[in-house]
């Protein structure tokens, strides 16, 4: 795709007034986007600076969150954010891979578009709907059936029984991770699908030609070829999971403490900001701590996104 060659019309000024205005507007909007991002990062940092100043770098590692004694720390929320996203990915990636594999290799042609669209619609459902569905449908199932079953299963096994222990609230880190997984599946599946489709047909055909099964082609040809982009797609899903607010707030059990069991309650940065922001007095240490948490979340998301873009880039050049 080349840019058109511009030959100025003779007898007129080299750059018309219209061109100048338009070009300036275009460049200015580019600048506006840069300003927006800078503004967001800056406002979060400045807002949170009181917390950093008060607690020092220890803020990031402290597990306290005590509004009465005015002691705040970021570790509980950071932990909640990271662990729910990690578990969500562990649950979502295999399913997304299965969907992508199905849609690219196994499904008959007539099925691909409707099924593909249906999976993509999962991505379109707003977060608060996931919150409601999670709270009213998934939580009762978790507390009455799934959690007790898992707790009983691991009961008696030394280390694992503490990881999957008591009481079956229904809400908690695991449930939040489950809902996040459902939200992330369509993103990862769509990226994987696009990326699987970029494998040149000739590679796959030669593999089929020597008698490979479909799975062997996927495992030995497609996956190695697209490995980097697949990881990029997973990182994209991770980025989405990190910032989810409404879906998590309804089901995570909202406790400001790190719990050893995966069924325990917790908080993510997004959920604690959503819950405690409205009642944080202006200029208070609590508000500053929440803004500092927002800044930390932004930094984490930024890093994840940067890595994902780096990994997804080679695909654009055909690999």
């Amino acid at each position: 795709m080349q840019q058109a060659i511009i030959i100025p019309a003779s007898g007129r000024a080299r750059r018309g007034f219209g061109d100048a205005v338009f070009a300036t507007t275009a460049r200015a909007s580019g600048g506006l986007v840069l300003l927006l991002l800078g503004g967001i990062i800056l406002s979060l940092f400045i807002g949170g600076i009181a917390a950093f100043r008060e607690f020092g770098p220890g803020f990031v590692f402290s597990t306290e969150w005590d509004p009465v004694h005015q002691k705040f720390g970021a570790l509980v929320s950071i932990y909640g954010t990271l662990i729910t996203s990690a578990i969500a990915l562990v649950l979502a990636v295999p399913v997304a891979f299965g969907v992508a594999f199905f849609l690219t290799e196994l499904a008959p042609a007539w099925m691909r578009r409707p099924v593909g669209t249906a999976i993509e619609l999962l991505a379109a459902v707003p977060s608060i709907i996931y919150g409601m569905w999670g709270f009213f449908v998934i939580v009762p199932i978790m507390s009455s059936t799934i959690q007790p079953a898992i707790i009983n299963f691991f009961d008696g096994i030394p280390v694992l029984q503490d990881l999957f222990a008591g009481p079956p609230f229904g809400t908690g880190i695991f449930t939040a991770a489950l809902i996040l997984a459902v939200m992330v599946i369509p993103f990862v599946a769509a990226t994987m699908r696009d990326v699987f489709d970029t494998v040149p047909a000739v590679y796959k055909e030669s593999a089929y030609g020597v008698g490979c099964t479909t799975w062997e082609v996927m495992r030995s040809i497609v996956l190695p070829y697209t490995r980097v982009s697949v990881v990029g797609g997973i990182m994209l899903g991770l980025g989405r999971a990190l910032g989810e607010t409404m879906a998590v707030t309804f089901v995570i059990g909202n406790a400001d403490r790190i719990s050893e069991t995966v069924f325990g309650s917790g908080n993510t940065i997004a959920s604690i900001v959503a819950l405690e922001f409205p009642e944080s007095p202006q200029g208070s240490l609590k508000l500053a701590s929440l803004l500092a948490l927002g800044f930390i979340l932004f930094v984490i998301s930024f890093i994840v996104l940067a890595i994902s873009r780096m990994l997804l880039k080679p695909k654009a050049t055909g690999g």
Partner: protein
Amino acid sequence: MTFRTTALAIALAGFSFAAHAQTQITGAGSTFAAPIYGKWAEAGATATGVKLNYQAIGSGAGINQINNRTVDFGASDMPVKAEDLTAHKLMQFPTVIGGVDIIVNLPGIKANELKLTGPVLADIYLGKITKWNDPEIAKINAGMKLPSLAIATVHRADGSGTTFVFTDYLSMQSAEWKSKVGSSTSVAWPNGAGGKGSDGVAATVQHIPGGIGYDESAYAEQNHLTTALMMNKAGKFVAPTMAAFVAAAGNADWSKVQNFAIDLNDQPGAASWPIESATFVLLPLDPKDEKQSTAVKKFFDWGFEHGDDIATSLLYIPLPQSVHAAIRTAWKAVPGTM
């Protein structure tokens, strides 16, 4: 197409109707008081000419909003400290009284069967008593078969005045709770799960056998939750009934407190319910617009004059007439008529 245009036409007509001489006031805060303020607004609209926009975002948030003067009045179940009132130039007055119930989910145990005391409740929420068949609980529930289930404590996840009332009561009953956790709209709970809103707490307790939580009495009553008996100051176990709430409120001595900041927890009296509180409204002493303050006062004045029946029907206890009179006098400090 026609349905939409009809709906739009009706909407526009509705707007034009509302456009005549009505003052719109905004309030925010206590979820506990939301039903009564809403009903008062509806019933008194024609008489007062005041329209209320009330956001039930929690007591802590309500205090925040009125401090920032982003609303006309704030509503909080937690009375604001005198020094904070002065610092933010606010005036405080109570509107109604309500009780907080303890709800449980124990297989085989029905409403108002389980007995609990303040210290035991505090130990449960501190995590010192972890099973329902613990000797401390069995001692006060002689003859009852308690299951060996783990206790699953539930609390309010959002900043809530109901949390304040509950933790204030626990602070009175347990020195350890007072020093370790304290009381506020939002505290560092030692254990348990949080539920969003009163509904969240009730739903979570109902989902999990062995669950225990706290909720506003009106809500517990409406939804037929399994409530527990509590031991009051006189050593008697009482059920969370209207009579018990009225008994506790009746003992209150309003003359001894400043800014109406009465604490109705653990009131004396054989029939009193121990976990109760008034809910408060905060008005600015330097309002941006005097008309708004006048409208707020008019709204609550109507509620005091004519709203007692509505209050009792929603399971709130109206304030005594003497307190109403004292409030009207206190209103004189706020600019604007009334």
